[in-house]
């Protein structure tokens, strides 16, 4: 009686539990839908299955490349929820929404279940052996140069196997393609700091000046940066860190900034140099290089008021160390490299290098180090396809048909290859173009090792292990597939490895010593490795180079206004949908975009002032036209964007990818021009110019935000104070 509230819940629990049990029926989840599976009574269950008790397994999150370690809750042989693995330095037991949705990637009803061979315009189911034979046969007829292999970022043993496979027929065309990779920043960092991916210590900085780096949302390693950010906000002895975000379209990070500075798209570099100039601490050639960038000029170019520039400079002077970040907004232009370098230069001038920017350790096994995805690869691939260089095309963990700029006509070019093999989880746009579709295990069913690109402390290898049995009998892990394919070519080399698991185990045990298991016997070492989910290593120290050279630094002044296409198109990266490969995970579709709270759709953000000029109001269906093409979507008036720019989120507008993604919204890639960064050849995603026009249709925007338009009325709901009104030192 004392807590009958709970008693009732107990009852409910039982209900829920048995209800679930009925729906799930036993442990062997092979072929749920055709009801062939047998219900295994719990008394016969594997000894780790204790009815009603959750068991936790460590593994790695495969939703993005940040390399968070996860801790999966498994009950009655089913994975229920993914928590963060507290042992990981990257996410310390934390998880982002995207990572949480990993289970919906795994349980997704639209997964590919059988190997399919194109027959006319529909696929016919074939056996794996048949599929392997087919590949072998096709490969035998072409030589290595005529084979292209497209993949997303790969690392660890999978990368090794893939490398071995490609070299087994002398193919050098491995295109590592990630639609949203910080390619330009890597290059710029290499030039400025001597390393591609240094370690950023946001938590150590007193001021963070970010040029469009959405490190809380989608940039490099968001979950890790978020934790640093929390520390940075708490500050040391009450000295709270200050975040200044400079960008043309407000990102999640921008929304959390103390000062959000909007500037004309593409002028980030100029502002950076202007700030150096305003600081006045630079000497020698740097001083010379920035001499021209005085307040008046910079202000004219960027549209940032002179006073603002001074304030920023003053604050940077006042509080040290600080940290300056160059993000995707800065790099997305034809002169992206210059932008990035100019911004990095600011770090040098402020003397942050070595304090808030440190060299990260490198993984001692270079062959396992991540093959970094970029967009330059896409260009080469596309040109090759267009020229008909490639007869056979493999595609894995990338969806170029969806993410390639419309101007590239990738879909058409892809058709020129006469045999296209796609390893897929779902029928995405690329899989639909394939001749042979091979179904993959989900990340929660597969083995693997991953090496994150952004190392937090020392180096680490993440272990990926299955959290439950396969849902679909006929899917395979990528590793197993590669192994099988390798066996076709070098049977005797791989004959000892019955499957990828065996290979992985052997490979790990081989380097037991180097992996910190010197005096452990194989089984103990292996089990501990699996238990931890992470192998932490010293890593090889790398050094930051000294002084960057500013000779090459040349920033275009005021970009001439395009009369026909007056607006800049900013394809924004949604925190949960990213490049669109996750759009079929309903939780992500239904979790509102933080800034607009719009769900299940695309929208175009326009500044209210601009909208008034164009007589556009919320919910108007507008047509956005570029040189390349045009798309239609709903308008949303958004104050956090430069009036000369409009922004459309990436990730929607799928023509495939299953019931939760197909037919929602529009895909901004379709109208993207093929403009590339002059230095790195990376795709300049922010360069596309567009015009916008009303179609006359109007819809009610589906969003969580209310008619009050995200304003607090009457009552105090979300309180705010300025730093001089609070004393954080007393806080817990």
């Amino acid at each position, binding site marked *: *009686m004392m807590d*009958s509230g709970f008693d009732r819940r107990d009852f409910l629990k039982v209900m829920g539990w048995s209800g679930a049990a009925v729906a799930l029926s036993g442990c062997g989840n092979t072929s749920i839908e055709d009801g062939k599976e047998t219900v295994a009574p719990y008394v016969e269950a594997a000894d780790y299955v204790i009815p009603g008790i959750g068991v936790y397994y460590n593994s790695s999150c495969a939703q993005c490349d940040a390399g968070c370690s996860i801790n999966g809750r498994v009950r009655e042989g089913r994975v229920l929820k993914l928590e963060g693995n507290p042992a990981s330095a990257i996410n310390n037991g934390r998880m982002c929404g995207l990572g949480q949705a990993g289970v919906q990637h795994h349980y997704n009803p639209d997964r590919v279940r059988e190997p399919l061979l194109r027959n006319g315009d529909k696929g016919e189911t074939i056996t794996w052996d048949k599929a392997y034979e087919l590949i072998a046969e096709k490969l035998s007829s072409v030589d290595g140069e005529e084979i292209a292999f497209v993949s997303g970022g790969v690392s660890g043993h999978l990368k090794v196997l893939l490398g071995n496979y490609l070299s087994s027929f002398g193919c050098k065309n491995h295109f590592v393609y990630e639609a949203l990779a910080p390619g330009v920043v890597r290059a710029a960092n290499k030039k400025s700091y001597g390393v591609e991916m240094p370690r950023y210590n946001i938590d150590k900085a007193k001021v963070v000046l970010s040029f469009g780096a959405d490190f809380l949302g989608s940039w490099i390693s968001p979950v890790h940066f978020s934790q640093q950010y929390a520390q940075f906000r708490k500050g040391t002895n009450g000295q709270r860190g200050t975040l200044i975000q400079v960008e043309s379209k407000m990102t999640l990070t921008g929304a959390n900034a103390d000062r959000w500075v909007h500037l004309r798209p593409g002028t980030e570099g100029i502002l950076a140099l202007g700030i150096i100039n305003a600081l006045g601490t630079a000497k020698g050639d740097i001083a010379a290089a920035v001499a021209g960038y005085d307040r008046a000029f910079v202000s004219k170019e960027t549209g940032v008021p002179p006073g603002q520039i001074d304030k920023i400079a003053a604050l940077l002077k006042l509080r040290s160390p600080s940290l300056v970040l160059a993000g995707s907004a800065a790099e997305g232009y034809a002169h992206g490299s210059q932008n990035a370098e100019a911004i990095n230069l600011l770090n040098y001038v402020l003397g942050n290098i070595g304090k808030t920017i440190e060299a990260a350790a490198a993984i001692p096994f270079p062959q396992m180090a991540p093959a970094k995805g970029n967009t330059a690869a896409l260009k080469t691939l596309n040109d090759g396809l267009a020229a008909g260089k490639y007869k056979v095309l493999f595609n894995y963990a990338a969806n170029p048909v969806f993410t390639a700029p419309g101007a590239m006509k990738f879909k058409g070019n892809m058709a020129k290859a006469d045999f296209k093999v796609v390893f897929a989880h779902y029928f995405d746009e690329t899989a639909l173009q394939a001749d042979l579709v091979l179904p993959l295990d989900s990340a929660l069913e597969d083995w693997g090792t991953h090496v994150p690109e952004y190392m937090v402390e020392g180096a680490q290898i993440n272990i990926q292990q299955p959290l439950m049995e396969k849902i679909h009998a006929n899917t395979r892990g990528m590793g197993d597939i590669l192994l099988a394919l390798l066996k076709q070519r070098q049977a005797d080399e791989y004959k000892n490895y019955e499957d990828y698991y065996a290979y992985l185990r052997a490979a790990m045990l081989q380097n037991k010593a180097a992996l910190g298991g010197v005096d452990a016997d194989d089984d103990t070492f292996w089990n501990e490795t699996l238990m931890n989910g992470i192998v932490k290593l010293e890593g090889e120290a790398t050094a930051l180079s000294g002084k960057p050279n500013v000779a090459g630094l040349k920033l275009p002044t005021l970009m001439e206004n395009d009369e026909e296409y007056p607006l800049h198109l900013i394809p924004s990266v949604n925190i949960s949908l990213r490049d669109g490969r996750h759009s079929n995970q309903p939780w992500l579709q239904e979790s509102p975009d933080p800034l607009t709270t719009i769900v299940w759709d695309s929208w175009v953000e326009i500044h209210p002032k601009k909208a008034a000029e164009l007589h556009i109001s919320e919910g108007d269906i507008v047509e956005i036209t570029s040189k390349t093409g045009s798309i239609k979507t709903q308008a949303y008036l958004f104050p956090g964007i430069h009036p000369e720019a409009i922004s459309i989120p990436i990730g929607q507008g799928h023509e495939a990818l299953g019931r939760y993604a197909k037919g929602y919204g529009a895909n901004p890639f379709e109208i993207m021009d093929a403009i590339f960064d002059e230095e790195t050849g990376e795709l300049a995603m922010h360069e596309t110019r567009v015009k916008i026009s009303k179609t006359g249709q109007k819809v009610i925007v589906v969003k969580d935000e209310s008619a009050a338009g995200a304003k607090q009325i009457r009552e105090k709901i979300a309180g705010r104070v300025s730093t001089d009104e609070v004393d954080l030192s007393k806080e817990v």
Partner: protein
Amino acid sequence: MSKRHLLALFSNFDEAELVVQELRTTKIDGFNVNDDMVVKSAIEHPEVEEFLGEKPVYVQWFTLFGATMGGLLGFFLISGAQANFYAQLKGGKPIVPLPPNFVLTYEMFILGGVFITVLGFLICAGLPARRSPLYSANVSEDQIGILVKSDEIATDKLKEIFSKHQALEIQEEAGK
């Protein structure tokens, strides 16, 4: 000694009144005015009180009882029920919050009152009743009926009185 019934019908009330007075005044043995006479009418005549003399009505006592019981039952049933929730506060209010209980007590008070009153009515008015041996549908229309019960010997005397006052009709119980 067996009794016989007589029913006389009168067109208007004044006649009936005279009849009743005469029956009262004239001494007829085998006939007792107070017990053996019933006046039937289509409407409720306040005057009936006057010439039949005060007769007590007990319905109010039922009402009093019903209302009180209803009220008490209401209050204690509700408070008692609420007392079961002592582990589950609601909205920070006391477990036995008086204001709501008073509202409900009030309703129960009325409910009990009405129900028992009706019960009382049925009892006091002797309803549902078995139909009396002599009845004329005219009574429910516009005529006044006087039903008397008497020994055989009184019958003629009564008839005579009735007819003297222009009784429209005199019904007599079929003899045995």
